[in-house]
């Protein structure tokens, strides 16, 4: 079976800096994969290249959504990437602070709604029905993620952990087949991290999404992932199951530094 995400020889140059150097990553359907590496290794740049925020210098990004043909994402704008079924969250929370929780999720539904300006002004039954359904769907997503009690609160007033979950809810509202999570557990306490762990597993099993996450919390990564990719200085240095990665000398070297002989 075709991998749902197939990134081959991806290179991203910023002037003289090679933020990503010949990275190849494949993701199978239903997989939870993690992308790890020390700070500044190029993990978020990798996400930005896939989602169209940056256009990669060279390399190819291909997706095969379930039941559809393989297509290239290279050079597409972020909104078209999302339309094709890849949703993401952000490392530094990027919620719409002037809106309520529900409206944040409704924004996620945006690309699945068809009513235009004229319909918005005249409000024919079809538009009203669509709008009602969108609100209903969004509420359902909030219920699933466990944020239903906040539905009419302003997004900015939510506790930190809830804001992170809302980002996931918002991404889920775009009907993705692949979810990219950029450090979803950053700044969370152990209790919240545990809940996040459950949520991600639940998403994979019930929402039919595959997940690629960037994370620094090794406990979370090791317990959650089926497959781990390690990058350092923009190069991929290893991939494998959590057990493989734990034992890989290159990975240990990247994280802890090289052991010198005379020590």
């Amino acid at each position, binding site marked *: 079976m075709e991998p749902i995400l197939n990134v081959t020889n991806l290179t991203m140059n910023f002037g003289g800096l090679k933020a990503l150097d010949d990275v190849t990553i494949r993701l199978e359907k239903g997989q939870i994969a993690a992308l790890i590496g020390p700070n500044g290794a190029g993990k978020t740049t990798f996400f930005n290249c896939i*989602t169209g*925020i940056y256009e990669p210098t060279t390399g190819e990004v291909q997706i095969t959504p379930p039941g559809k043909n393989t297509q290239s994402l290279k050079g597409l*704008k*972020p*909104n078209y990437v*999302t*339309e094709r079924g890849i*949703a*993401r969250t*952000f490392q530094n929370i*990027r*919620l*719409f*602070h*002037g*809106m*309520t929780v*529900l*409206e944040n999720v*409704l*924004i*996620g539904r*945006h*690309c699945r*709604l068809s*009513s*235009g*300006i004229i319909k*918005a*002004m005249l*409000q024919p039954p079809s*538009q009203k029905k669509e*709008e009602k359904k*969108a*609100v*209903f769907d969004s*509420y359902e997503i909030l219920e699933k993620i466990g944020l239903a009690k906040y*539905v*009419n*609160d*302003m997004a900015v*007033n939510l506790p930190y952990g809830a804001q992170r979950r809302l980002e996931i809810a*918002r*991404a889920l509202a*775009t009907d993705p087949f692949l979810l990219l999570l950029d450090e979803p557990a950053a700044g969370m306490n152990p209790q919240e991290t545990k809940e996040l762990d459950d949520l991600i597993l639940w998403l994979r099993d019930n929402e039919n999404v595959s997940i690629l996450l960037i994370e620094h919390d090794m406990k979370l990564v090791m317990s959650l992932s089926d497959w781990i990719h390690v990058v350092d200085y923009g190069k991929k240095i290893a991939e494998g199951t959590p057990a493989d990665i734990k034992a890989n000398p290159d990975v240990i070297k990247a994280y802890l530094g090289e052991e010198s002989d005379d020590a």
Partner: protein
Amino acid sequence: MPIKNQIKQSLIIAFWFMILTFPIMVIKVNTIRHTIDFRWANFLWVGIVTFFASMIWNYFLRRNEEQKKTDIADDIPLIHKLLQNDRFRRPFLGLVAAFFIAYPFVFPMYHTSIMISALVYVMLGLGLNIVVGLAGLLDLGYVAFYAVGAYAYALLNLHFGLSFWVVLPMSAFLGTLFGVLLGYPVLRLRGDYLAIVTLGFGEIIRIVLENWDDFSNGPRGIGDIPAPSFFGHQFGQHDAMIYMYFIVIGLVLMTIFFVHRLEHSKIGRAWIALRDDEIACQAMGIDKFKTKLTAFALGATWAAMGGVVFAAKTSFINPMSFTIWESITILCVVVIGGMGSAIGVIAGALVLILLPEYLRAVAEYRMLVFGALQVIVMVFKPDGLIKSVRKVYTFKAREE
């Protein structure tokens, strides 16, 4: 801040003002007798007044801060509470409607005329509110579209004899077209850059109108623009004003109706999301450019319609009516009224346009009082007179 520090601060401020105003308030040069009078009493008065003004200012600032701390959630403006409450909504709206219907018959023509101007600004404000308040695009050249509407009516009437009712929808279309034409190249910019470029575009339109004599009659302007007719019947001057008033009321109601619907639709949410965070917005599948362009074009639509009304009301237009100050005034209406809040913008337009007219009683200090009021509103109510409130959704369907 303890009271002691506050007194100290106010004393310093008072002293500073005494020195600052010393040359104008204290020294009086008599050029005929070649003498200098020192008016020390004034010196003292400036000090005392500044001291108390500063104390009061501080008191309100502190109270404002404390209020913010105590009720974050319950921060809904009174008028929204009234409108949400079923018992008060109908009588309240009825009262407002009665006031506006009775207005031209109760008050003299001069007041009706001022009210028409204010209502045109309500239209313009609501239009600009889409661009600035909702989509967060700082547009300083908004008056250009206003000019497009006004000149469209004046010229089409002059050359082809088209009537108000024909030109009004045409101008809406023209406004949209110009919005797209001007928006297309400039909307790649954002923030300050966008403001400067739109400022330039606004001036270009005005300068073209001023200098392209064959087309627009230059600075001499175009006169004898007919007032709107009523199925072919032209009213006398007084009745025409009342008729105009009701046309504007109708247009304002239409504007409120459509803008409200837009605001709470898919496209309206996209505008607000775009204002809050462009990158996240795109990552949610929203086409940034298209969304910005629709905001710009729709804003222009209402500006152009406002322009037609303006031309019909004043019956004479020239480029001087469309200077940068007009843009600034409309922007003030939106910012002081409350960005993104339709009710706020309406209140802002009425206050900002009517107030200077009624302040003629204190003619000399009119602009001074007006400016001071703007500063005070911005310091104590940074969200505007009536801030926007998001829609609350209920989920009755689930409980069944």
